[in-house]
């Protein structure tokens, strides 16, 4: 496979994941804003924009936070380089670049989702339609992953795509936690006010983990449990541990196909040993923020090594 094509597949799925994660964030924000008074709903939208990593761009354009302003900015603002529409454009552009490395079912899933989302985002999004848009973005992701699962060869291209997905997903979960971590510090966790559990609920919703968490924890919400769930629970498909293991599997498959252990495999192994013996107490002892920063740095180093190992660029 061409290095450029591998690069296209890797980024196609990173952007898809990013678009989907942004949609999940919006979803959680919408829910939160509905259950809050005006002042705290403003705060909530600021937090959504900040978690999406778009605070600087947003504040360059607006000097206050309202729901409709926020979701339109995140979804479709032309001045926002990281809008969901831009990401979907990048997904499709990368798919076109890698067109002969993906199945036609996968291409059509991407193209159809893109057409639908583009159509929905052609005009400003209102309170009445924002929920549908967010659902369409998530459904697009589901459709694409489904088409891939059912139709794509399990050759190197597949593993580049999957590695991109899980590197991005792990990073997204880590970033959400990092921005909200002060809410989850143990010192605050025993306060147990409704305000706090509401915030924790938002964190879980942002990664679509609210139901899964409640199921596993019999409805009991506490900071320690949430941190353990999002970081270390390998049953939850958006936890750091799950994403980490998935990337490891895909890199292992790539090494097997290529018959060599590459730099990315070596970095992965080092990351393995860091995460293997971790438990939630050790994380808090180390400092959640420090742990997350190290995780994100290691992720970035692995991504860079993949690009180098497999000659993504000239």
């Amino acid at each position: 496979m061409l290095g450029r094509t591998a690069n296209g597949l890797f980024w196609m799925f990173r952007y898809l994941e990013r678009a989907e994660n942004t949609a999940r964030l919006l979803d959680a924000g919408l829910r939160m804003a509905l259950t809050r008074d005006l002042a705290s709903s403003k705060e909530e939208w600021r937090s959504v924009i900040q978690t999406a990593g778009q605070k600087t761009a947003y504040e360059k354009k607006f000097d206050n936070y309202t729901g409709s302003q926020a979701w339109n900015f995140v979804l479709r603002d032309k001045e926002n380089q990281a809008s969901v529409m831009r990401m979907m454009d990048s997904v499709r552009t990368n798919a076109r670049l890698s067109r002969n490395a993906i199945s036609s079912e996968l291409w059509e899933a991407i193209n159809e989702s893109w057409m639908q989302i583009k159509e929905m985002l052609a005009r400003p999004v209102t309170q009445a339609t924002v929920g549908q848009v967010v659902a369409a973005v998530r459904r697009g992701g589901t459709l694409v992953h489904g088409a891939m699962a059912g139709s794509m060869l399990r050759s190197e291209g597949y593993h580049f795509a999957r590695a991109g997905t899980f590197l991005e997903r792990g990073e997204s979960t880590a970033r959400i936690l990092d921005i909200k971590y002060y809410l989850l510090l143990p010192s605050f966790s025993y306060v147990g006010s409704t305000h706090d559990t509401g915030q924790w609920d938002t964190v879980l919703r942002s990664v679509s983990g609210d139901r899964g968490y409640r199921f596993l924890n019999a409805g009991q919400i506490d900071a320690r449990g949430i941190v353990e769930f999002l970081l270390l629970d390998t049953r939850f498909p958006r936890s750091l541990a799950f994403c980490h293991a998935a990337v490891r599997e895909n890199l292992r498959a790539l090494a097997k196909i290529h018959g060599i252990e590459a730099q990315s495999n070596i970095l992965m192994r080092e990351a393995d040993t860091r995460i293997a013996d971790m438990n939630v107490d050790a994380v808090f002892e180390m400092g959640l923020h420090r742990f997350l920063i190290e995780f994100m740095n290691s992720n970035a180093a692995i991504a860079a090594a993949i690009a180098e190992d497999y000659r993504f660029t000239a």
Partner: protein
Amino acid sequence: MADAPYKFDEMQQADGSIRTPYGDYNSWYEEQAADLLRRKHFEAEGNFRRTGITFNVYGDNEAEERLIPFDMVPRVIGAGEWRKLTRGIEQRVRALNAFMYDLYHRQEIIRAGRVPERLFRNNAAWLPNMVGFTPPGGVYTHIVGIDLVRTGPDEWFVLEDNARTPSGVSYMLENRETMMSMFPELFTRVGVEPVSDYPRRLAKSLAACAPPATKGKPVVAVLTPGIFNSAYFEHAFLADQMGAELVEGSDLRVVDGRVGMRTTRGFKPVDVIYRRVDDDFLDPLSFNPSSVLGIPGIMDVYRAGGVTIANAPGTGVCDDKAIYSFMPEIVEFYTGEKPLLPNVQTWRCSEADSLAYVLDNLAEVVVKEVHGSGGYGMLIGPTASRREIAEFRRKLAANPDNYIAQPTLALSTCPIFTKSGLAPRHVDLRPFVLVSPEKIDITPGGLTRVAMKKGSLVVNSSQGGGTKDTWVLKD
């Protein structure tokens, strides 16, 4: 809009009877409910959008993707008609290839005084660094599109030769796929020659032209300018269908005397490059030193037998309309036979008598630039305004060498599907021809382009033309 006096419709004769090749289609058509057909008509567009069969158009801000209109009434050619056509096409393509060889070697045809030397000396597509070099297998024109027009049951003319990088074959293939999914029962009632094996034929034909340096099974790659090129869909489609890599210039590099593509395992030699880029963008060392595109040194590898470039650099000479005007002589010179497919009568404005005639008859003729393509920069006398004619007269007088003129032909029509039923529109035909040392291979069918506007003679997609599925009937 003025029309030439006699029009030949390929489906229906003047007395209302249906021509034989369309018999089966017509009886099927008459059984169909009109509203069902109308619904199908809209479905077709959705299908093309979903599969992404689009071409790029450059607007003010961003490249926009458009669909080429697809018409669901097939263009039907009888088995006997097709056999006759293929003999003429094969003869012409054989002559084109021999002509290329001769031009870059002894130039017998010039020595014999049949073609003037200035014709190619002044031609930008002529490449001095191809002189004396013979491409692998002696093939210059690996893929050729011959544009044909028809004026009567037995009257076909060649309008243009496309030997540089003919495009449109993906539409031939996708139009057929679309027709088969829309009207499966139609194909059980009418025996139509398949076109779907074109990519396999192409892969085989290209592999048969592999260079001496090839080890094992030839590695073929399609070289595209990238996703912003108007024909990118076709490049990706053909690579996909052939199981070849789709490469850009930046993926290729000369490594150890071969052209290597940058794979995830390092550089892997490519044997045959089906390039869809112009000569200028092949090798900055040889052609265009200021270009950052292209593969430095590829021409040296080529000349040393390390790679096959299809079509060969320098074949663009054949696309020149001044060369076209000499095709009857060229065919006769190399095949020793009279051309089976005639040219459209052509006045070379570089010749004083012809120029005088053309200037006197601008309102009746079609004037084209010798290097033009895509329907740009031409004058269609009968439909042009007086101002357009006056403007063209000035251009023509200022630089007559740059133009040829042809009579306005009464192009045949084929019905298209409209809201009010079938309506005749002008068509042309581009069959696709593959050349290898083994054979000249013509896929039964081709791309039928159709002017969607009533009375219009311009079929180019860049000018709003559409396409049709082209059927060659089985015997």
